């Protein structure tokens, strides 16, 4: 009777008995040809007559279907509607009136494209779209059950998702890092943090049945992967062969084998590692290199600018010729450290030299010491500019510099890892121990100065190292009395004859250099919850009879993908860098991100479409199987999927492709004829109007009142909750914290996600439940929402803040205050009628309800935050 599923095929409501070849629970010609199981191919784009609907392939696909069905697509939305729609879709925040007006006035042909580019470049993009992904992976920061204990550091995973989206990390890499960022050839701190993906589920610290709970957790991990990444529901195959898809119970357990080694969440410090950037972190080294290269580039710019300034100064004051410090540097370099354009040359050895090695008369060149340029160290040791590789325990080095006279002052520079002794002309002048992570510049002390001699001066150094990286560098510079720095020359010349723009540029460059030096990436200690496995060989896995782990069936011998996808056994090996894992997740991830995987690109493009158009091309985004909905435009989806792959999995580029289509720019207005034929807008003849999501709503309120704190990232914040809400917890205060006021106005994506306590302002508006993957949120409209919007402390406090903003921006001008309220909240100018109406409201509140003018405006602010126009996006 498995085959008596006529409706699944979308054919008829009447039972039809199908042949074995049509049995959709088996791998056969029928199932292999099903839209989401069949291989992904680039479809050809239909030709359509309407030129406006033929520029984007998306439009051609849609228009073709609309025309066949006798539907006429809507015309374009107004520019205001469009930019408001795009702002919410991409950043989750409303546009400002200025942004709307600028777009309305921009008559350039690429005006729309510029808006898209600006929005996609905004860091708020990551905050908005991360939330969509967090719904799918049921992101939460506590474990649930009796203690609902915290998952320490897990917020880094949330930040990882935000950052990855903002950096447009290719989607294949994004999946790879989450599934197996620890098993990559070169894990980075980010790829390690990404594996927090496996740590988000509910977890009971005292389950009645430990074995069952273990497999509940593995099942949970497996489901967010199969449903989230592959659009495949496999839950029922845990107990028996799938009754609606060609997935057998054996398929299920062979797939679970990929996850079998994963350790379960645990109390407190379990699965927590230091993933901070250091010499083992390719990401950190790359960022260091990038930073230094940028620094060099700015310095060169400064040199060029100063050269020009010097030339202009010399024109006015010829006597300066030859007396200007060319580099703008006030020092004469005697022995350059590694940072100088010409670093000093040293003799060095790593083998213990004879006892007189530090004496003046010790000639290193005669002792077969090697020649090397400053500084010394192992690549990647923080701070030092390495020109000569040194990676052994000890280093002896000698260098010389010449002096014509004994200076009164000298400037020294030093960096070392670890202990260092420096001799000058045979005398011990400096001794430092430990690690110096950055160059130290300092004036020579008396001891150093008194050891100087005219002519040849010999510097001898010995450095010893016990663990970690190595570094040593030392420099000597003299202050230049006889030369003028640019600063001094400029001051003397009172900048006469120098181009003002050039001076401003120099000032700006110097500021940038200083700031840049401040922001040099530092090796840090970063604690994160990461995935860990039980070892290179995971514990054995058995098929569970009826899903019961206590009733073992056959041993699962292979890690393989489901038969319908080819059933390949995936080879794997433990990562070479010695991490104690099986490599199984990496093997799976590599299969999932293969460009020809029939699901991965289809699934993510469907999600992109869903969040732009309000409904996926397949309306069940986690289920592309027989139990899911059929796609309305499967060929278009295939086109989008292949386009994503050809764009190297760049989501930002695909957003742009979608938003540039005519379809995205359509108005949401009704048309009687179309409403009669396609009331549900199945064929996308209009844009779908939508209510704001919970986060968009709260963030919009804060943006409107001007109190939104746009700070990004970091540990989650606790917003104020009513005592009644905290009283629902079994512990006093519900272990809910209290963040400082300025933190409480941050974007909703940063609010603490605690399984047992959910802030009502978000829950009332259909926040996703965190116990399972949520592909599509509900969009309910309920009286409790009206109560929250009229009476909650949050909305009322914000309404007062909003009114205060109006009073300060338009003091003593009620009509302007009313107009401003509508302008800010709705991002459009108020009509005369609305102004009259608003003023009438304020007056009625004062006259009939005896409110002060202040309170009357407070009420108007509250009213505006409750408008449908504020809540819905056309």
């Amino acid at each position, binding site marked *: 009777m498995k085959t008596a599923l006529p409706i699944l095929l979308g054919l008829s409501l009447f039972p039809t008995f199908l042949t074995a070849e049509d049995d959709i629970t088996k791998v056969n010609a029928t199932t292999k040809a099903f839209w989401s199981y069949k291989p992904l191919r680039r479809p050809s784009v239909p030709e359509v007559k309407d030129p406006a609907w033929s520029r984007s392939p998306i439009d051609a696909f849609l228009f073709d279907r609309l025309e066949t069905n006798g539907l006429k697509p809507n015309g374009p939305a107004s520019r205001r509607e469009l930019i408001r729609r795009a702002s919410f879709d991409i950043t989750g925040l409303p546009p400002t009136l200025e942004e709307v007006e600028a777009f309305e006035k921009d008559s350039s042909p690429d005006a729309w494209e510029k808006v898209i580019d600006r929005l996609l470049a905004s860091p708020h993009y990551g905050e908005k779209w991360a939330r969509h992904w967090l719904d799918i992976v049921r992101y939460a920061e506590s474990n649930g059950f009796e203690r609902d204990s915290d998952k320490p550091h897990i917020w880094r995973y949330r930040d990882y998702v935000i950052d990855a989206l903002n950096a447009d990390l290719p989607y294949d890499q994004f999946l790879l890092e989450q599934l197996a960022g620890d098993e990559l050839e070169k894990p980075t701190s980010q790829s390690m943090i990404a594996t927090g993906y496996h740590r988000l589920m509910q977890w009971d610290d005292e389950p009645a049945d430990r074995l069952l709970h273990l497999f509940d957790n593995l099942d949970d991990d497996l489901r967010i992967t199969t449903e989230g990444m592959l659009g495949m529901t496999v839950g029922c195959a845990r107990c028996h062969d799938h009754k609606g898809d060609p997935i057998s119970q054996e398929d299920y357990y062979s797939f679970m084998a990929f996850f079998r080694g994963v350790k379960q969440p645990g109390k407190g410090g379990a699965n927590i590692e230091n993933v901070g950037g250091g010499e083992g972190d390719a990401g950190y080294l790359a960022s260091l290199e990038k930073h230094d290269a940028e620094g060099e580039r700015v310095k060169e710019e400064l040199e060029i600018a100063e050269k020009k300034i010097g030339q202009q100064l010399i024109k006015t004051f010829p006597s300066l010729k030859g007396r200007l410090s060319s580099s703008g540097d006030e020092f004469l370099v005697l022995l350059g450290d590694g940072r100088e354009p010409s670093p000093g040359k040293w003799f060095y050895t790593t083998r213990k030299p004879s006892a007189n090695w530090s004496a003046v008369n010790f000639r290193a060149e005669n002792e077969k010491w090697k020649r090397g340029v400053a500084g010394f160290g192992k690549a990647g040791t923080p701070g030092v500019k390495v020109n000569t590789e040194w990676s052994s325990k000890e280093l002896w080095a000698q260098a010389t510099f010449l002096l014509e006279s004994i200076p009164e002052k000298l400037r020294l520079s030093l960096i070392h890892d670890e202990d260092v002794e420096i001799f000058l002309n045979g005398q011990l002048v400096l001794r430092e121990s430990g690690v110096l992570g950055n160059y130290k510049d300092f004036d020579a002390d008396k001891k150093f100065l008194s050891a100087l001699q005219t002519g040849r001066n010999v510097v001898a150094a010995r450095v010893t190292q016990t663990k970690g990286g190595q570094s040593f560098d030392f420099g000597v510079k003299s202050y230049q009395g006889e030369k003028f720095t640019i600063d001094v020359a400029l001051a003397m010349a009172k900048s006469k004859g120098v181009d003002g723009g050039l001076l401003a540029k120099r000032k700006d460059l110097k500021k940038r250099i200083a700031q840049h030096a401040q922001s040099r990436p530092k090796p840090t200690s970063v604690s994160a919850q990461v995935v860990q496995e039980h070892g290179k060989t995971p514990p054995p896995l058995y098929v569970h009879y009826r899903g019961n782990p206590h009733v073992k069936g056959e041993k699962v011998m292979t890690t393989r993908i489901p038969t319908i996808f080819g059933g390949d056994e995936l080879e794997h090996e433990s990562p070479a860098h010695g991490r104690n894992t099986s490599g199984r997740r990496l093997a799976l991830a590599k299969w999932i991100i293969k460009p020809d995987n029939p699901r991965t690109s289809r699934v993510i493009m469907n999600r992109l479409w869903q969040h732009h158009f309000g409904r996926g091309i397949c309306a069940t985004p986690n289920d592309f199987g027989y139990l899911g909905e059929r796609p309305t435009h499967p060929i278009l989806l295939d086109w989008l999927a292949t386009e994503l792959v050809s764009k190297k999995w760049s989501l930002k580029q695909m957003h742009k492709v979608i938003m540039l289509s005519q379809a995205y720019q359509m108005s949401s*207005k009704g048309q009687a004829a179309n409403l009669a034929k396609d009331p549900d807008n199945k064929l996308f003849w209009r844009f779908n109007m939508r209510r704001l999501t919970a986060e968009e709503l709260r963030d919009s309120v804060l943006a409107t009142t001007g109190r939104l704190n746009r700070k990004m990232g970091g540990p989650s914040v606790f917003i104020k909750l009513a005592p009644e809400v905290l009283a629902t917890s079994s512990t006093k205060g519900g272990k809910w914290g209290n963040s400082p006021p300025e933190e409480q106005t941050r974007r909703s994506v940063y609010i603490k996600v605690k399984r047992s306590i959910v802030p009502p302002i978000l829950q009332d508006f259909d926040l996703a439940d965190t116990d399972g993957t949520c592909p599509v949120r509900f969009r309910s409209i309920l009286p409790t929402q009206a109560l929250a919007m009229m009476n909650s402390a949050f909305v009322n406090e914000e309404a007062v803040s909003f009114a205060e903003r109006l009073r300060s921006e338009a003091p003593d001008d009620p009509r302007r205050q009313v107009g401003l309220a509508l302008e800010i909240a709705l991002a459009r100018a108020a009509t005369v009628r609305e102004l009259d109406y608003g003023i009438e409201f304020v007056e009625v509140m004062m006259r009939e309800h005896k409110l002060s003018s202040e309170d009357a405006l407070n009420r108007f602010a509250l009213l505006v935050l409750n408008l449908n126009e504020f809540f819905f996006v056309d």
Partner: protein
Amino acid sequence: MNKPVNSFCGQINRREAIRHLGGGFTSLALTGMLAQDGFFNKANAASLQGNPLAPKDSMLPQRAKSVIFLFMYGGPSHMDTFDYKPKLYPLDGKTIDVKTFGRGGKKNKGRVVGPKWKFSQHGQSGKHISTLFPHLAKRADDIAFIHSMSAESPIHGSAMLNMNCGSVVSGKPSLGSWVNYGLGSVNENLPGYVVMLENSGGPISGAKNWTSGYMPASYAGTVFRSQGDPILNLKNAHNMPREQQRTLLDYLNTMNQEHLGLRGDQSDLSSRVSSYELAYRMQTTAPEAIDLDGEPDHVKELYGVGEGRTDDFGRKCMLARRLVERGVRFIQIYSGGAHNDANWDAHGNLEANHNKHAGNTDKPIAGLIADLKQRGMLDETLIVWGGEFGRQPTAEYAKGTGRDHNSFGFTMWMAGGGIKGGVSHGETDELGSAAVGDSLHVRNMHATVLDRMGLDPNNLSYFHGGLDEKLVGVEGAKPIHEIMA
């Protein structure tokens, strides 16, 4: 009236849901529900229009219209309350072989704690009830006792989820959500599912106990307070007078109408306009429902309202009756909150603990039954009494009378709509350590509640994550026919 209709987590809006109906049928087909043509043929697109809580026809003859679940949080001891174990008294202090599993893990031996209260027989049925419940004992003939209950976990966190949502992991909708999903609510001015908590705090896992899980939040329980502001955000901010609020709403509506003018086909916009009117009405109906001042003294006396220790629970029971009168489908009242002795979780001193909690609730519960009966409401109101598990016959520690958790066997009782009075069903062994014979699972209790409410427990399903989820699980469960009238 409409039939309950399956919907998706994948639901986008109501219009979308209509489109999803095909998918709904799909899943129903899988559990063989196509066989029940009569049931599903009536489902139509219109059935998902409007409020998800709109009233729906029951699937089966309805024996009860509302449920009052008296949740004895922490786990009351069955052998000290309703499950008479005469042989346990003389064993007091003796160490015996008995398999137990509780907070302290699995044990094979233990020191018996003899029952600390005397039992005597009550009513026509001659039911043995301990002296902990002198008032309730007078209602013995209205009650059906189930002595062979078992649950999947002897640990509070997962056991609470098990008792409320049918599963030891979280994410599933609670019993009250299923009832509201299946039947809708007949009073749109009040929530269909109300939860009342103890002042000492909520139960372990808090809101997870009345969650709607993967169903829309409109099916979740609403926390109601018996005094003050019954529902969060119900009271106007700034003490705004009602006339002023009316003016505000009128101006808001006018401006919303203008916006709606160009978008007449967007039903969400007009729904939102009417949701403000509903909320406005709720603001009077809900406080009116909790206003017990008008209740006559003799009724208050019945519930123990105004009598110190029973006042709080008495108010909640009286409020429950008033909510039932107003059509609220499911009401859950917690006896006990927070942790340890603030609820029935008697690990240390059994006597002090149970004297306290039984003493606080005995008269109110007896009063509730009596009051419902005298108003002719008892036969359409289903009362459920019990905790997430029972307690062990042996002591948890070397000293003292405290008992550890016991999910192998414990007692719950039901009374009212569609339930036989004066019966006892099932039993535990002579120590009370485990159910014997055909033990009953939490699922059977859930099945009984759904059945009595007119919902077929084995066919009431909700399609989610590729599965037809049911409260009673894929295994299904029979209602407890032995106690059903």
